[in-house]
């Protein structure tokens, strides 16, 4: 708990000071990642077209290119984050039971962090 210089309760201290300045962050991050995804998805489409007919050495060469590797890694970071934020809103809207809702949000975030970490490590292994 924060140390208070007065005898007021923490709630009384916070009252009237407005928000804690984080209420908008979910909404804002969803928009920021959405804007970033426009460019990243366009580049991913180019990479996917190149990869789809490629053999093993070809695919390794494409993803070993520093620019491609960096953009795929950015796509994973930004895309998985955008996904987590979006799925959270869906759960908040449709799952009425608070405990189940929280458990699902936590579970989805953990799965996405795990998949993201495995993906990033794979790209590093391919590129380095």
């Amino acid at each position: 708990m924060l140390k208070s210089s007065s005898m007021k309760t923490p709630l009384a201290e916070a009252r009237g000071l407005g928000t804690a300045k984080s209420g908008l962050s979910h909404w804002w991050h969803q928009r920021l990642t959405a804007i970033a995804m426009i460019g990243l998805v366009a580049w991913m489409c180019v990479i996917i077209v190149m990869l789809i007919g490629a053999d093993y050495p070809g695919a390794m060469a494409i993803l070993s290119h520093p620019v491609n590797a960096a953009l795929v890694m950015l796509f994973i970071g930004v895309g998985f984050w955008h996904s987590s934020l979006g799925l959270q809103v869906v759960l908040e809207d449709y799952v009425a039971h608070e405990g189940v809702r929280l458990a699902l949000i936590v579970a989805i975030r953990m799965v996405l962090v795990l998949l993201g970490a495995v993906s990033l490590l794979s790209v590093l292994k391919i590129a380095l």
Partner: protein
Amino acid sequence: MARQRPLSPHLQVYRLPLPAIMSISHRMTGIILSSGTLMLTLYLVALANGPESFALAQKVIAHPIGMLVLFGYSVALFYHGCNGVRHLFWDALIGLNIPAIYKSGQVVLVLAIVLTAGLWGLIFSAV
């Protein structure tokens, strides 16, 4: 005793207007696209793991069912992307009136079809 009040909108008998259909489709495509994180992870792991697992991944992708999944995924991607840009315009308070909402909805549908066709044109000319 509770009074029998009407429910609104009555989803079983109420024909959703275009903006409503597009709104729920944005969510549904978002959920579909989220599952793509698993597909991307599996592909990258297969490639990082070596030639044998990569050959298996390519076989799965080249299979008609794999291609169908990829095609559906690309439709969801371009729809969600175009409609997402539409949402960004709304966030900037642009196009927030009923006629504009219908018009931008139609633009999004046409663009999504054009982009999907473009991508698959490129894929088939590359293979």
